[in-house]
């Protein structure tokens, strides 16, 4: 199993990762790196800029009110207003704030403080109980809160064109397209606390934005020159069982999408054209944090905030379940939909799960470890020791499953692996201190090679072109007749972390890890 000590040293101070060539990441000076990227990408280069206007984070709106409100009301009025605006808890808080307002008020204030303390104790006691609704929900927080203060918090590439949607911290989305100076700004009163954005496959113009009130479907005419699409371009798809949205995923053909949300464990599938929905699963397991449709459309991965994950087959929606030692943090399907890579919230280990085509889910009994991502100290090119690895924040796999990027929660490096799912898995990593990567996304419409877009904590988006000759077939050119349908597996298996790699055989292949030449992956 590969670990992060196999990495090549990161570049020294003042250098950034600019591109990948001959299987190695190259670092250059900041200005040179940008120039090189522009030269490599030519007309396809998209500069993601914030613009002139200041971007205010969506979660600081409450504080402004305090600066301007004149406190001319009586304390009782303030309590009433607090109750109307924010509920009974806020009114009790407001009651405690008032001082020297008479004996009756003092008694009420004392009672309020006692009630609040009792409530606090009850809340603490509830937190101690093992409730699935409360456990690990870092994946469900809005993107803005997951960012680290920069203006851009996430990017999503269009599956077929050179178009990139960027989520800003003020809950707006801007769409950048190569060769177009117009960047439409998507803003709506219902678009609050964005958790997920995804472009619809096989469409030029449709984008789903998962937010507090449901899924907002934006229809953006590609030849339109309007910079601020109106409210008529939006339609809201909200199911009471799936609001606020935690995660959403498009069917690979685009007509359907699955979404999950709220504190219940219901899985909702929408027909986008007819705007009709159906709850395909409602069971136990706590709230669902992540859904992913496999690229061959036959399976749907569902991660729960409790320590289980399920994979559904999408014909009659039966499932197989795996128990975990910690809730899922991030997961990715391989391009052919036969392999699932995932990481949990606490273990710095990359796992894989193979699937055998045929009736039912067909998952292997146990997940195997493929990479040890434990935090380690490595020396950079200048000889300074830097920390790499730890618990993982996000995984991203390119369209051909040849490059896998990993962002860590506590350390400042993006690790890049060269992967080959037929039959082996290669790895090669990098990163840089000072700035923290927030999220990563691969461009999806490239005929060969890859472009990785990294959102740094400063709000900058860096594109890293990767030139390589592909060894993996694209999903569309796969001949399904080559699938071996003779192997079946049982379900409800327990995840065993200590299984040697070569135990799972068959079509899914056994990802044998091998250290590759380490590359460096740095921020500008």
């Amino acid at each position, binding site marked *: 199993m590969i670990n992060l000590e196999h990495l090549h040293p990161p570049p020294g101070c003042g250098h950034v990762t600019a591109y990948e060539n001959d299987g190695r990441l190259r670092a250059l000076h900041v200005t040179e790196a940008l120039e090189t990227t522009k030269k490599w990408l030519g007309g396809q280069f998209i500069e993601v800029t914030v613009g002139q206007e200041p971007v205010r984070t969506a979660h600081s709106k409450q504080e402004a009110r305090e600066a301007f409100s004149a406190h001319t009301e009586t304390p009782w009025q303030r309590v009433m207003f607090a109750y109307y605006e924010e509920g009974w808890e806020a009114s009790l808080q407001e009651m405690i704030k008032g001082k020297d307002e008479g004996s009756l008020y003092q008694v009420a204030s004392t009672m309020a403080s006692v009630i609040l303390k009792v409530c606090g104790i009850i809340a603490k006691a509830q937190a101690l109980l093992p409730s699935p609704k409360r456990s690990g929900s870092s994946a469900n927080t809005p993107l803005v809160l997951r960012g680290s203060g920069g203006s851009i918090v996430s990017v999503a590439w269009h599956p*077929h064109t050179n178009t990139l949607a960027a989520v800003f911290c003020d809950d707006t989305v801007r769409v950048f397209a190569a060769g177009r100076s117009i960047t439409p700004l998507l803003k709506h009163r*219902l678009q609050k606390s964005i958790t997920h954005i995804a472009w619809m496959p*096989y469409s030029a113009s449709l984008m789903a934005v998962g937010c507090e*009130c449901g899924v907002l479907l934006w229809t953006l005419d590609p030849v339109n020159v309007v910079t601020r699409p109106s409210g008529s371009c939006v339609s809201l798809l909200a199911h009471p069982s799936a609001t606020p949205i935690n995660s959403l995923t498009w069917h690979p*053909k685009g007509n359907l999408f699955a979404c999950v949300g709220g504190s219940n464990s*219901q899985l909702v599938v929408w027909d986008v054209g007819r705007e*009709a929905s159906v709850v395909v699963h409602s069971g136990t397991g706590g709230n669902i944090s992540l859904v992913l449709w496999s690229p061959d*459309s*036959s399976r749907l991965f569902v991660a729960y905030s409790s320590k289980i994950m399920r994979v559904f087959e999408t014909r009659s929606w039966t499932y197989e379940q795996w128990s975990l030692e910690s809730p899922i943090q991030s997961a990715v399907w391989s391009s052919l939909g036969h392999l699932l890579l995932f990481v949990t919230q606490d273990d710095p280990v990359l796992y894989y799960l193979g699937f055998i085509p045929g009736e039912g889910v067909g998952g292997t009994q146990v997940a195997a470890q493929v990479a040890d991502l434990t935090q380690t100290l490595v020396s950079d090119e200048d000889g300074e020791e830097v920390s790499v690895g730890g618990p993982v924040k996000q995984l991203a796999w390119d369209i051909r499953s040849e490059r896998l990027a990993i962002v860590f929660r506590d350390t400042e490096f993006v690790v890049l692996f060269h992967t080959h799912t037929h039959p082996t898995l290669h790895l090669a990593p990098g990163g840089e201190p000072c700035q923290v990567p927030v999220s990563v996304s691969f461009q999806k419409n490239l005929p060969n090679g890859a472009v990785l877009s990294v959102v740094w904590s400063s709000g900058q988006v860096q594109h890293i072109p990767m030139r390589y000759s592909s060894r993996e077939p694209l999903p569309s050119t796969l001949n399904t007749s080559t699938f071996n349908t003779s192997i079946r597996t049982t379900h409800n298996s327990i995840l065993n972390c200590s299984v040697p790699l070569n135990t799972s055989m068959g079509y899914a292949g056994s990802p044998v890890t091998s250290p590759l030449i380490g590359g460096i992956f740095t921020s500008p």
Partner: protein
Amino acid sequence: MKPEDLFSSEVLLWRYVRALACLLLLQVVAPMAVCNLYHTVVAQRILNPITVTTNLLTSCIYPTKLLRLVVPAACFVILARVHIKSYTVSAWVPLNRWEKWRRVLSLTVILRSGLIMIACALLANFYTSLAHPDFPFLVIPCTPGDVMCYKRKTVIIYMGAYVGYHYAYKYFMLNGNLITPTPAHPRKLQLIKASLSLRSTREACNTHGANKLSFLCAICIYMAAAIMINLIYDGNWQEWLVIFDLPLMMMTLLATVLLAISLSLFSQVFHIFITEPVEIPVATAEDSNPEAETDSWRLSNALSSSGLLQLLAFWDLKTLASSDPMNFARRTQVFCISQPGGHPRNWMGIMNPSMNLIRKFCERLKRHNCPEDLPKPPVVPAGAASAPTDVNKNEVVKPPPVPFKERAVKLIMSLKRYPFFGYFLSDLPDATNRSIFAEALPVIWAVQALGDLVTASFTEDKFGVVQRNIPDILMAFTQLQKVVDGLGRVTISRRPGTGEALPSELQLRKALRFSLRSALYTVTTTFGDTVLAMPVSAECQSKLQSYLQFKEG
């Protein structure tokens, strides 16, 4: 045997039976348990859980109660009969107000609404008689001294009939009888579980007349009617005020809520069972000898049929065509050729009905919106046909008799000028287009299926059976898209977040545009620049070019 008959006798009949069995189990056992519990705890004031449980169990096998089970069973059979006879697969869109009134006043609708109301009244009486000893069963006569007995019976029966009327109006006039398959098909148990959730039951109460306002309204109407009757017959109207007693109110509420939930569950469970997908074989053993039997249980025949079978056949075709590897074996059958002979029978059997449906739909739209685009029918020369002649062979100039239908149309047109008749007979806005789009669901699935099959043929079609027809398919798609786009945007718009839903026909119009675009993008993305080399019209080619460049939004 025709595919429709086969479908009715072998598939649909069993679905009805299973739906009814499931409903009886769900709706008789569960409400009986609720009512018995109420009877034990509230009426008899027994609070010991062991006694309550034993009472519940013994009451279920009590002979009189078992006898009473005949009543709900009969009610459900009546309701099932009405549902089986009245469901439809395309929404009803009235062209003018007269059509609306005609439907309201039609004998069938009145008769079926009456049946629903009777069934509901009986059910309400059944539920209350189970729950409280003061509420006797309909057939049990009241004791002479009991003043309230008769009034309680009438109030409950009236409220039952009222909820039934609410349901029947929604069912017949507001497309409550429309049956459309759900976007995904999980197990039936899951769907039933979802329809039993607290949220759906609350929604059911609101929609089927068991909400507070409706309840009050019904009671007021009832009171007014009762007082009027008493005044006419010189009775003491004040005695009717005694119906405002707490147990009666409680029982009325319980009965209406249970009834509303029962009706909603009935329609949902019926819907779930009827729209269950059916897998129709692409090719059968008879295919090797096509002259042996022409009408058989095959996908191509089912696609050419009508109604529910056609809808389910197109759903099956759509599933078959999707990229799911599990359907690979069935897709292979579509692309195979007959042995001997090498004819692509299966593909043609699928493509022809689908294309016919798409073309006919396109023609209907064109005929109404842009008749000038339609190809002109060949003009018959005046002298070519045998003209009427007299005995001397001279042509007789005699105007042909005007058929009755034309005269009726002319009469209606002339009546429209008068305001009173105009109100009823003038067309409602966009009604014709809406009525056409109400039947668009199979067209949408045909478009999706053909798009997916053409895409799949790129890698899976070994004999090239599809490639000859790709230009035709693309031209049909682009033509239909031109017509649909030419209609402009949907006139009724709504603001997101207001919770309003578009009428189903307008939603289908949106869905058709959406699926056409999606299908064309799927084909152009898979085939790339090759599509430009296909022999298609110049207009279609320019459209494909813009699809290749992702400029169609």
